[in-house]
């Protein structure tokens, strides 16, 4: 088979590497002489380059071509990044990483692994398998680790001790973890202590939403010790004034992202509030940080929120949010950049939106689901925000026609103020 990978268009590919032109010449010469290309002449760097673009399976096939290619196949560079996919046929439609491959990686490449993630389906077996692999990664030094539940949070179903011991293997051995994603896992305070003891100099990102075994004190210990932490995601119950003060201490680098999930476990739950002075300290320390807040609350649980100014930049109301709370958003969120409202009652949000346009001068993206806004108010809102609205996703049903604008002319009017063609989002009528 004459698959001409290299040298097809000469000059085009020549810029790839210094050795390429001669190689192409040589390959072409060989080609003309006996009609065969001597692939052994392909320099390893080029082969490596090609391999980097191939999916693992293709690389594995290619590795069976000859000894040289097999050697390249095992080059450490190609094994730095790996995603383990652990799925069971009974609980997932997707294929799993082959057990033999996992064995091989642990045997030959575990010391090369640096960027590792585990994608785990909803079965406990898969989560267990992930822990088994983790506990065998004794001689590797990971830079990033992600434990990702692709369906239900299956790590939560494991015995806590089993999970913790596997995780601490990585914490203890890695010593230079910079990024750790452990949402929806039974990680606890003592294991975070181990993390901090071994990786405090390098940790930059920690994502741990919905980890019920961590306490505010546990996360405070991370913030106190890991001064390089730039990105943090956690649930609201872990957020405290002390945590914000720790993150805005002098020794701490600027924070880039802080994501807070506000989820109510039972209706009518009481939430604590955060002092304005703590947020102020945070903004003084990291003037550019993004505060991302996801709310999944019942309408009557918003009491402690949006009373004082809060430096939130990205707001997502996943459940219903009342008209009154949205009115407070306009008053208390001067840094707001993005706003998503999934649902609201049946009263139009006219004044609330206009107030947001007036007060939130950075607002550039908005999405509205099950709510109502009169067409005139919406046009007014767009007019006030103008071109800075880069994303404007409004469900068609949201816009209530009034005497000024009907459903057919609203898109012209809005497009005019935006300076680009705009349509409301439509859902199939079927």
């Amino acid at each position: 088979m004459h698959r001409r990978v290299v040298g097809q268009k000469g000059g085009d590919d020549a810029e790839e590497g210094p050795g390429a032109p001669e190689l192409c010449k040589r390959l072409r010469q060989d080609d003309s002489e006996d009609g065969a290309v001597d692939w052994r002449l392909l320099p390893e760097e080029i082969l490596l380059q090609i391999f980097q673009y191939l999916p693992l399976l293709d690389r594995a096939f290619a590795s069976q071509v000859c000894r040289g290619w097999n050697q390249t196949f095992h080059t450490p560079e190609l094994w730095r990044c790996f995603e383990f996919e652990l799925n069971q046929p009974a609980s997932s439609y997707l294929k799993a990483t082959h057990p033999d491959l996992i064995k091989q990686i642990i045997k030959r490449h575990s010391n090369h692994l640096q960027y590792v993630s585990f994608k785990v389906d909803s079965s406990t077996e898969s989560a267990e398998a992930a822990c088994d692999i983790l506990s065998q990664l004794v001689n590797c030094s990971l830079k990033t680790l992600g434990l990702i539940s692709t369906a239900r949070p299956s790590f939560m179903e494991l015995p806590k001790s089993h999970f913790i011991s596997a995780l601490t293997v990585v914490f203890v051995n890695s010593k230079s973890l910079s990024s750790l994603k452990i949402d929806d896992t039974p990680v606890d305070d003592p294991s975070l202590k181990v993390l901090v003891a071994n990786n405090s100099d390098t940790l930059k990102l920690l994502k741990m939403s919905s980890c019920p075994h961590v306490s505010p004190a546990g996360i405070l210990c991370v913030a106190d010790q890991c001064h390089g932490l730039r990105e943090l995601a956690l649930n609201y119950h872990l957020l405290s004034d002390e945590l914000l003060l720790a993150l805005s201490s002098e020794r701490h680098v600027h924070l880039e992202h802080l994501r807070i999930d506000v989820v109510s476990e039972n209706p009518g739950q009481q939430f604590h509030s955060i002092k304005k002075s703590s947020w102020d300290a945070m903004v003084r320390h990291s003037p550019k940080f993004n505060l991302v807040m996801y709310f999944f609350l019942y309408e009557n649980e918003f009491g402690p929120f949006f009373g004082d100014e809060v430096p939130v930049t990205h707001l997502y109301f996943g459940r219903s949010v009342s008209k009154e709370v949205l009115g407070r958003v306009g008053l208390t969120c001067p840094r707001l950049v993005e706003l998503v409202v999934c649902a609201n009652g049946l009263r139009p949000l006219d004044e609330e939106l206009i107030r947001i346009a007036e007060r939130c001068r950075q607002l550039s993206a908005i999405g509205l689901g099950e709510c109502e806004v009169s067409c005139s108010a919406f046009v007014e809102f767009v007019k006030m925000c103008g071109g800075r609205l880069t994303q404007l996703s409004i469900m068609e049903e949201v816009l209530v026609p009034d005497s000024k604008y009907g459903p057919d002319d609203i898109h012209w009017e809005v497009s005019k103020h935006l300076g680009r063609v705009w349509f409301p989002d439509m859902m199939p009528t079927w």
Partner: protein
Amino acid sequence: MFFLKGDSVNMAPNSIHWFRKGLRLHDNPALQEAVRGADTVRCVYFLDPWFAGSSNLGVHRWRFLLQCLDDLDSNLRKLNSRLFVIRGQPANVFPRLFKEWKISRLTFEYDSEPFGKERDAAIKKLAMEAGVEVIVKISHTLYNLDKITELNGGQPPLTYKRFQTLISRMDPPEMPVETLSNTIMGCCVTPVSEDHGDKYGVPSLEELGFDIEGLPSAVWPGGETEALTRIERHLERKAWVANFERPRMNANSLLASPTGLSPYLRFGCLSCRLFYFKLTDLYRKVKKNNTPPLSLYGQLLWREFFYTAATTNPRFDKMEGNPICVRIPWDKNPEALAKWAEAKTGFPWIDAIMTQLRQEGWIHHLARHAVACFLTRGDLWISWEEGMKVFEELLLDADWSVNAGSWMWLSCSSFFQQFFHCYCPVGFGRRTDPNGDFIRRYLPILRGFPAKYIYDPWNAPDSVQAAAKCIIGVHYPKPMVNHAEASRLNIERMKQIYQQLSRYRGLGKNFTIFFCHAVFFPLACFPGYHHMPDTGHSSGLYRCNVSHDMAGPQHSGNRHRNVYCMLHEYHTVNITYSLYIPIYNILCGVQQATCCTQEEVLQVRGSESRNEILTVKMTLSPPLTSYNGKLQRSRRFMLPVGTSRVW
């Protein structure tokens, strides 16, 4: 008298019209062809009795179909003709019929669905071998779908907006043809034997093996006659309210309406073209306006859109191997699926809708959104394919293309939407029908609950539950999921998937396109991350090289230049031009993002010779999606709000 096989030169032909969909005598161009100049015509419908019992169509759909056939038969009787219901499979039976009835012409309505096209091709071949002329006419859709695809450069449009643009460039649909009448029949007759009823009669549900004891009477009676009554009522009502907008949802619109048309369009008891032109006429009469907006035809165009998307895609109803479907790691969970399908989720709003679906075969489109969202991306994280199968069994108007297309849409698996929110199984219903009458109607067990608790009865105090004579957990199930928690998780999952999609290595043999922005978790599980020097983290800025696409067709002069660039990371991205490309404008800012996604590649326009460093803020995602196994960019693909950037 001697007949020569296929001799249609001297003899008036004997025709068969084959009914599949299009169960009507009005606007049926293929049926007219069968009659035109013919000696005899026989209208046939194939039913496989064995298939009836084993197929996954529910009893409501069978009843609707049989009523359609009955109606067709009685309308044909008025023309001294009859319907021939043939027991068996077309491919097996047609050769015998051709011989027995000395057939020289076969007509049928064009079927755009891949399975139908395959079946029809086989029958055509068979007919040709038997010397039978085959005439096929388009009348189930407004347009010739292949023309739409052609206008779009050979690919079916993947967004409804794109589809609307294409439609607005096309001529209006053809006018409906005249209804079959005695005049049109002329001297064409249908030979009917004494034992027609026994041999070719329309079977009953019992004959097909259905147990009809306790089956309530049909809320949606099938048949062309009913369809024509309904369309008049539908238009009268529209004229009366003089309102052509999509009616706003309220408690009443949840119930089956005597002006509803969707099942009739599905079976072709009602011609979509007739509907189209009647709407147009009415609009002109009422609004005194010459050009009705496209939105007037919303319901018809959505149907057309999904037919167009499906016609060339035999895997349209699957996730695996379907080039337009995003692979989402759905959970396999038969118990949860059964609870959903059997109306035992513990969410009265969801259960009432599923009960209505099971009892009547129809639910409002927003109710479809509610239950589909609940099953897939909203709460249960179960594959849309499973939901589609349940709808196929129960929903009267479930068409292969429209059913699969809508499910892909509602589960965020295709036809990329920007907006992304989950319907709340409590709040959505409460807003629609605050009093909860809909729930009391379909879930009588909850009748005793006050409106305050009827959408979330598990929150009702024990005394209220006792007074309502319904203890949650005993008489009615507890909610099967914690919606707040489930929707939080699922939005996270969706975000993961869409972010990974936007990170695909794409295009070009030389370069990679990554427009990855604001990934909250940018380092781990980032294929290819290690290729990039880790320079950015200290400054929050990343550098990347932009190289000229030498293969681009327009790389000389002052024309647009195509530039592939490799962008990693979020916030601000410094693009360094490693080649000496003259630049003055780069169209990748937020403003022009829509334009960018319209083009195949990011465009850089060159004019004067300058080598400079540009700072570009990338905030939108590239339209990368898998198509035909290759990675290509779809026309419009943006991360939905709430999954993009720093979310």
